[in-house]
């Protein structure tokens, strides 16, 4: 089926099966590499994108359900995004594979005022896994960006 997706402020026509997941369409047809599949069951957060500003797991969201909504990936954040800058300043990454999902989740937490304490930040990031184990610096980065 033909779909028109609004990705990072741009309308993109794609040809997808009804059951194709959003993350696969974004990677294979839109050519983005920021959303990534790790667990495939919506638990690890590496596929996180913002759908009308809300973080969703792209690996369990069927692409047609994203029609008519604004999809934001890491590639769509402004160059001077404060969360991105804070992750950089705090060296809050190693391999980087989980980081786009972390940044987008943190962006939403900060926008909603849900990053006011370390405990709240840990709760908010609970669905974003990082096997390198960069959590301490990621939490510091989010705390700093929220201030």
């Amino acid at each position, binding site marked *: 089926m033909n779909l028109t997706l609004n990705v990072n402020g741009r309308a993109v026509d794609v040809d997808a099966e009804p059951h194709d997941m959003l993350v696969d369409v974004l990677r294979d047809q839109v050519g*983005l*590499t*920021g959303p*990534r599949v*790790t*667990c*495939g*069951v919506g*638990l*690890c957060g*590496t596929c996180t994108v913002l759908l009308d500003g809300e973080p969703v797991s792209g690996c369990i969201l069927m692409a047609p359900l994203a029609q008519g909504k604004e999809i934001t*990936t*890491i*590639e769509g*954040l402004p*160059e001077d995004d404060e969360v*991105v*800058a804070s*992750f*950089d*300043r*705090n*060296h809050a*990454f*190693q*391999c*980087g*594979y*989980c*980081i*786009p999902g972390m*940044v987008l989740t943190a962006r939403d937490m900060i926008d909603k005022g849900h990053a006011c304490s*370390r*405990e709240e*930040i*840990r*709760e908010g*990031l*609970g*669905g*974003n*896994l*990082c*096997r*390198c*184990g*960069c*959590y*301490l*610096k*990621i*939490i510091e980065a989010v705390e700093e960006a929220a201030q």
Partner: protein
Amino acid sequence: MTQRADQTRPGDGPARAYDGPGASSAVRGINPRITAQISYSIDSTIPGEWHLRIIRSAIPAGRVTGFQTALLDDDVIFLTADDVSDLNTFGCQIADQVVLTREPKFVGDAIAAVVAPTARDARVAASLVEVDYEAVPSVFGEMDAIAPGAQLVHAKHYTSESDSAYFDMRPQDGTNVCHRFRIRTPALQGRDEPEVVPHLDDPDDALADAFADADVIVDEVFHTPAAAHVPMEPHATNAQWVDGRLEVTTGTQTPFNMRQDLAHIFGLAAEDVRVVVPFMGGAFGAKTFIRTEAITALAARKAGRPVRCVLDRDEVFNEVTRHPSTVRIKLGAKRDGTFVAKRIWAYVNTGAYADCGPGVAQKMGYAGVGPYRFDHVAVDSYCIYTNLPPGGAFRGYGAMQSIWAAERVVDMMADKLGIDAVELRRQNLLHEGDTFCTGEVMHDARFEELLDDAAAAVGWEKDGDRRGKGVVVILKGMQTPSKAEARIELLPDGRYEVQAATADIGQGAGEMLTRLAAEYLKVEVDQVVVCAPDTDRVPYDTRTTSSRSTHMMSRALADAARDLQVHGTIGHGYVSNDGGLDPDTGQGIASSHWHQGSASAELEVDDETGIISLSTLYACSYAGKVINKHGAELQNEGSMILGLGTALFEELQYTEGQMTNPNLSDYNIASALDVASIRHRVMEVPGGEVHGLGETAVPPVPPAIGNAVATFGYDVRDLPMTPERVLAARLGDTFQSPTGEDPQ
């Protein structure tokens, strides 16, 4: 290839001026890893490539008797063991594998493959193939597999010519033991002993006199389960044949071993294989030696076009695991606390194929001896085949399994003697100039400072109330022998290019190389670029494992910089660390430098639920000199967090050899919710040499927690320390795994 192989890469991106130690990055501007501006293996593609799916055995042991393929589309390419008849067997330390097998040895063994124009077509095709099997008896637990008369996983034992087989193997004929490693300190050598000790209650009569001077003996058995590496990026490989040359782009920690092994499998000269390594989204040991590369290369050869293979998450879980192990430790001491003798039996479950299990077994053996003085040491490590998925390299490389046992036993000894557990350790620590059980004389020994630091972190007071507290000190080795070469080339634009095979797993290899080259060349970091590991372009390096790269490559680079200053435009550097251990006595050089660390924990245990609540988890690792402060901290923190998961919840479970939790819903790894208690230190000393730091803090974490838990009366022997196991340990029971396959 569309991948970045031919491009130079400046660390991770455009470099920025070096602003002294502690600068957050050698990269100018926002690091491209944050904004997805780098390409991982999975992002690499070759135009026109088809897609591979592997068809895997549904039985743990037996024979494939037929395939039904009538439903496959005409354009689908189907590969079976018939397509590998001209290929050589492989295996990094023992050549016991074929690319596709007729005789599967674990659930998940590759028995066939399909290649189709799209990933979707390949997935559908794989689901349409039906397989007929003839099952044979199987064996899963390491103690079952070493028992006399056990079903043999392999009918005979093999050897390997690979560079990775760096010591003599001691396979035990007629058993599942593919390698036996022993340490015997001088007075214990040359005894008449059984070849294999299959029982955990063996009286060990031949060596009993080693304990003659001991007033107190602690003799206990511990177990660690299989665990998963869980690199966030799955294994991803692209392969093509160009004018008879094989080109593979793949996420691997072992580019030169890969080149050699692929050349051997396909009967090519090493120069006719090119291995290019893009950035990896983590590996932790999972991306070592042949994984998806040989099957993808075979498929590309048969298809006559490029082929891509990306594993699903459940396949990543089954591809390679951490070795389950059973470790028995017997420690003898005098009444005053002086250690007399240590005896270790390590039973290492390497699954269906040896992979690097023999090396893991060896390191498990000597790491369990610990940083202590003994009159006598005897170790037996058995690398044992079973019908589980293969065990392989895993962050910590065997040290965690035996240190879990050994450091718990030190606390048990302290309790028996009525001596403070930290003081008992201090009393027996190795110091500068002391001799380790391998005959090596210790140098740059920092164990006492590490022990004191960890004890202070939990407010340990000598002979004070230690309820809820545990302290541990460890040593682990680095790959020895090994070689590292590096080249630095002055480019026409005046910048310097570092050519080195150190793979960027995510640990910051590019940044490390950039900073070091800039320091040695006395230039700004933005004058240094680092090329991607590409075996056509970079010189030989043993591999990116065992926390060796910063230590070895720093010296190769310094050598290259000196050479460049003499010769003008190209400088070549080379270092080797020589050594190795005799497999029958364990005498020799285990490690050209020692990774030294400590950890401590302070916690509570809920009496009703068995839940452990950590208030402090601390680790101190000796770094000597730090190249990149943030990178060093991240490695230490990451190691601790992995150790925390190992201690409390990570365990692969099997039913009749079938993994039952190969997903991140049923196999939990640590999240941000688990790290509130973590603090740590990377220990530097003025003038210290560069020490590896990639995994030192993994092994001490589980026993630090275990020792603290034991102060409440919960004597947990089996990892992970789940609430059920904690409660069962209070009752004095041994926890039985629900699968009934717990080897104890």
